């Protein structure tokens, strides 16, 4: 057997020079993967067995209440609270983010103080606080500051659990959303803004046509994170008597004592809502991912959808 002369390591030459083609090579053996797969299957079967055979889940009760009127009203209230608080959060958060990035020191200070306060106190405390605003300001009135008033209303009449919930959830969400926007906006390359300015675009146009669309790629994932957190956060409203999903199932199990099945009912609905949101996120991310990579998308589903879209465009082009 010949060896190569080498100052460092001697390399053995193959004994025979049989031609070898690696094209049909098999995958390496991975015993650990097999063991792990078997354990996973066993645990999964066990879990399924538990779910199906443990009578304490009371699946018949779950089925009975899943579509009951009280639960559905709770679902509708949870969705309503989510949408209104989210809208306040998205709009007010946007204004706060723009203020924090503004050249105006007063606007910057105002936005920073807002975020400091609403991010720095617990959401539950804020909800209870808004619900009890009447203790701090018994009468709300509209008028000239330190002058005559035109109209006034008692706080306790105005601030229902619903209003307290919307305000409490929305203002808290805005503080977080502002930082999400800001993170996205400052991640856009300075050169992009300079190029837009050099083309003679005015500041508003630079913001909406160049900076924001590119920032969206970084804004969308954490925004859905916070929307999903908001869906679940609405359950805090049960504390101040807002009749959302958790409040509704609590109302039922406080009478029937079927705690576990009704909490499962609530969980199923929360999971359903967040699953739908996951789907929406997928499509929004795909929209803002345009031009972000050399080869287009990566996942199988995205590649399939993109091929469909490309075929549609082609067909449209041939018609016209």
């Amino acid at each position, binding site marked *: 057997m010949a060896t190569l002369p080498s100052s460092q390591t001697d390399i053995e030459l193959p004994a025979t020079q049989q031609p070898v083609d690696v094209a049909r090579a098999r995958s390496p053996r991975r015993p650990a993967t097999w063991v792990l797969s078997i354990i996973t299957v066993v645990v999964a079967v066990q879990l399924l067995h538990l779910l199906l055979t443990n009578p304490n889940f009371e699946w018949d009760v779950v089925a009975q209440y899943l579509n009951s009127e009280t639960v559905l009203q709770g679902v509708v209230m949870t969705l309503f609270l989510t949408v209104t608080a989210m809208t306040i959060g998205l709009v007010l958060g946007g204004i706060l983010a723009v203020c924090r990035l503004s050249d105006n020191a007063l606007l910057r200070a105002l936005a920073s103080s807002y975020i400091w306060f609403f991010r720095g106190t617990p959401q539950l405390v804020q909800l209870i606080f808004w619900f009890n605003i009447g203790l701090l300001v018994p009468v709300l009135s509209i008028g000239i500051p330190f002058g005559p008033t035109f109209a006034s209303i008692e706080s306790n009449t105005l601030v229902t659990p619903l209003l307290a919930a919307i305000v409490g959830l929305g203002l808290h969400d805005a503080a977080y959303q502002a930082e999400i926007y800001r993170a996205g906006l400052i991640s856009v*390359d300075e*050169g*992009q803004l*300079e*190029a*837009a*300015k*050099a*083309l*003679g*675009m*005015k*500041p508003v*146009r630079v913001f909406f*046509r*160049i900076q924001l*669309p*590119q920032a969206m790629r970084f804004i969308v994932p954490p925004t859905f994170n916070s929307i999903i957190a908001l869906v679940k956060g609405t359950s805090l409203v049960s504390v101040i008597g807002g009749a959302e999903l958790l409040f509704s199932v609590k109302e039922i199990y406080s009478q029937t004592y079927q705690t576990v099945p009704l909490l499962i009912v609530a969980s199923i609905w929360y999971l359903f809502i967040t699953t739908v949101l996951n789907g929406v996120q997928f499509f929004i991310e795909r929209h*803002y991912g*345009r*031009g*972000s*990579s*050399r080869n287009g998308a990566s996942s199988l589903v995205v590649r399939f959808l993109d091929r469909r879209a490309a075929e549609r465009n082609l067909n449209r082009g041939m018609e016209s």
Partner: protein
Amino acid sequence: MTPPVLRISGLRKQFSGVEVLKGIDLEVHVGETVAILGSSGSGKSTLLRCVNCLEVPSGGSIWLGDELMGYRQESGGTVRRLTESQIAVQRRKVGMVFQNFNLFPHWTVLQNIADGPRSILKLSKAEAIERSMTLLTRVGLADRANAYPRQLSGGQQQRVAIARALALEPAVLLFDEPTSALDPENVGEVTDVMAALAASGATMLVVTHELGFARAAADRVVFMDGGVILEQGTPTEVFDYSQEPRTREFMRKTLV
């Protein structure tokens, strides 16, 4: 000679106390191509960026035709800085090509070029597309109109960026080291487009390290060093017969 389209007088610029431009006087005439050379830190890019107000000068003045860039003279002699929106209107007469292309990645090549004519010059959609396609043909990329910038090579992106700057029919074109971010094999395609542009009578101010381009395409070469213009003249005067030791040293080091 025609009157200068761009007149820079006594231009000064400081960055946190450090003086980068120490009084620049430079005139550019219609149809002229001026190449600005100098080692890094000599202030060439800052000079260019002051022209379209991407930097705020510390002193001096820049006139584009009869307009004072970035400022307005009020009755009584007060000079007042313009708002960003007013500056945006002035910038439409100045095109700029950046070192890193800075094409908008979320828009196709065609959208990148057609947006200016469409939204700023208010052309119809058909006119904007027609103008864009003409320009793309001129830079040899008509077949890539629907590609996204990241799908193009650096040289192709820079040619698109040139077409985008031309789409607004600017009075002056600024090039900030347009080939410095390119692979050596892609430099030629960009300098060829620029040389053709210079030959067609465009008014260009080009900061570059491509001495070959400067010698072949520039009408005048300006050599900057330490924030001042050390000398200027025809390419032959500056490249071959410079009396300034600093210029000669730069040429010797760069040409090797």
